[in-house]
């Protein structure tokens, strides 16, 4: 068995804070716990969005995840909000 849900969530947040780019693909979070099924990791990442820890960023065709504070800065730089 892999990590507990809370441990995985903490690892996801850590990854989203430290990644060079603010937006991450769902796949980037799989590595937080290789023993956990991708669908479970997806559900935990989506739970973090509901909890306000992450935010969706979508191009329309692809959806990515980001920390709200990091993404807002990005958009501010581009002058869209």
């Amino acid at each position: 068995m892999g990590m507990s849900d809370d441990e995985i969530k903490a690892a996801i947040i850590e990854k989203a804070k430290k990644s060079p780019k603010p937006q991450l693909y769902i796949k980037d979070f799989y590595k937080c716990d290789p023993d956990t099924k991708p669908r479970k990791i997806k559900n935990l990442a989506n739970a973090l969005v509901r909890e306000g820890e992450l935010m969706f960023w979508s191009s329309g065709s692809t959806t990515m995840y980001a920390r709200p504070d990091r993404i807002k800065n990005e958009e501010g730089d581009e002058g869209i909000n």
Partner: protein
Amino acid sequence: MAKHDTPMLDELEKGPWPSFVSDIKRQAEKNPDCWDILGQLELSYRDKITHWKHGGIVGVFGYGGGIVGRYSDVPKQFPGVEHFHTVRVNQPASKYYSTENLRALMDLWEKHGSGMTNMHGSTGDIVLLGCRTEALEPFFWDLTHELGQDLGGSGSNLRTPANCLGQSRCEWSCFDTEEACHHLTMHYQDEIHRPAFPYKFKFKFSGCPNDCVAALARSDFAVIGNWKDDIRIDQAAVKEYVAGNIPSNGGAHSGRDWGAFDIKKEVLDLCPTECMWMEGDELKIDNSECTRCMHCINVMPRALRPGKVQGASINIGAKAPILDGAQFATLIIPFIEVTAENEFENVIEVIENIWDWWMEVGKNRERVGETMQRVGLPTFIKVMGLDPIPQHVREPRSNPYVFWQEEEVPGGFDRDVEEFRKRHAA
């Protein structure tokens, strides 16, 4: 009164066809923001570059799809389209509406958005074009609370499923496309509203191989009605067609005189697998060779019907050209029962088998059809737990090498080298 000069767009009103430019002008008389759509588009035609900026964090709370963020990159010039987000609303199965519902939807959209629509987008959704970020939540509240309707999918989500009108109107439908589409839409609400995959994933349901929703070309998971037994033949009706007493193709070619109906020329010779022939005035079909193209049935609907053992074929992996070229779906499961009696359990099992694998193996922004291409069909068929069948083979092999799987070799790949060297010195 037009707000911008649009000489190039005006050209597009001159042909004999309906013009989107005229449509936008008409709406702009009501909602002046729409003049800026035309202004910005004219500028794009002049600059030969789009002035839409893609993407962003727009959405409604708790949803990761259904709204596609679009902004103008020249908002000072065209303030009416500074924000111009697209909203996708899940269409009803088969796109049946009451005029009451359509009016309510349009009123809602004029209240919160530009009033411009696209009925329907190629995914099937009701597409509402252009609103500001702050209008999204109020619009969504009204849509869900007053109309009882919901957003569709976008981004890396399950996209809004779509179906042909199936058994509600069409005698050829081999399963209940509306029920299947509705059931799976409800079953997978989480996957429709929140991102779930490496990239988009689409289901479409057609009741027969005529494939009126073009599932084969447009969906990652195409469920296309099919039958297992023999095409039903009414020989008396065949004679009527031959005698010219029933018009072919349900009378669809009656606008012009094409001459007398010729069953040989129009049916037998056009059967792609050449599996039909006449014995006297009896029509014969070698059903084991029939590829379910529907041609003969389309030409003589009163004489020929799909068989009685009905279900669907599952074809996986179609996509539009993004990384590589466009491709049609590949036939994976030739026949599966599709019925509400088991709540589509067997179809769901196939879907989740694919998802579990694709989520793990698929690369970012890779459609399942591209993943299949990358690993090769034999590997994909193995992942799906299926045995290869002749229908999986596109053409005779041109590659002379045979690669054995370890479990296919008696004793596996391990061997006793010492023993071998006793017979063959190194």
